[in-house]
């Protein structure tokens, strides 16, 4: 059952990724991207990592993509050229991408899963488990992440203010 969901959502993800590539207007690309991210979230949910699914929607779609949409609206850009003429670059890209994929496959992908500790008592991917672990083990990283975010905000503001 889970596999059906995973298959369905992955198909959607690929279709929307291709749409991002090929749509002309940036706004529509953004919308396709949002849909792509939502389907990824669907995959995470089907896998059982609900935490990540939530975070995907919240952070990626809710923050990052909104920001992008703002920028698109700000830079009122109608046209600009669509795609570079199909050149050797496309072929190289495909080759590179597939090489990376295949490399990943060869490296780690093709061994079967270890015997899962079948349905462990505590589902480690629930919110409560995640939060506990986060506060206990990863609190330092969390703090660093906040510092990073702060720095990011300040930098963004400074860049725009100074005029780069």
């Amino acid at each position, binding site marked *: 059952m*889970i596999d059906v969901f*995973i*298959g369905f959502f*992955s198909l959607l993800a*690929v279709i929307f*990724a*291709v749409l*991002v*590539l090929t749509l002309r207007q*940036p706004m529509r*690309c*953004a919308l396709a*991207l949002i849909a*792509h991210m939502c389907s*990824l979230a669907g*995959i*995470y949910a089907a*896998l*059982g*990592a609900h935490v*990540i699914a939530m*975070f*995907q929607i919240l952070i*990626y779609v809710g*923050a*990052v993509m909104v*920001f*992008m949409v703002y*920028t698109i609206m*700000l*830079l009122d*850009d109608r046209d*600009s*050229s*669509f795609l*570079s003429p199909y050149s050797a670059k496309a072929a190289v*890209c*495909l080759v*590179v*991408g597939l090489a*990376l*994929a295949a490399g990943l496959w060869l490296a780690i*992908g093709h061994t*079967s*899963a*270890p015997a899962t*500790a079948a349905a*462990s008592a505590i589902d*480690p*991917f629930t919110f409560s*488990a995640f939060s506990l672990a986060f506060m206990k083990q*990863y609190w330092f990283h969390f703090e660093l992440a906040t510092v*990073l*975010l702060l720095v*990011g905000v300040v*930098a963004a503001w400074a*860049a*725009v203010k100074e*005029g*780069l």
Partner: protein
Amino acid sequence: MDRYQFLTILAGLIFSLGLLGVVLRRNLLVVMMCLEIMLNAVVLSFVSFAVRGQTLPGIAMTFFIYVAASCEIALAMAIVVLLVKRRGSLDLGAHQELKG
């Protein structure tokens, strides 16, 4: 092929599509979006391996990837705005000063 192998292939495929987009599209903003696609593919592979091994650190890692992505998008948009103000267009063809 079990689901995790499938997800690995999928991650690779989505990464390639993102790469294709980065290289081929001329609109700066769309390039940024394709960059996000690549990042998403990475997250997907992280998550699939974490679930496969039933471990938490993979999940924590993805959280931090999100944090990084947010910072990145903030700064990137700021830079894009300034760049567009300077050049007057979003076309990447106009920014080819490094040519030759």
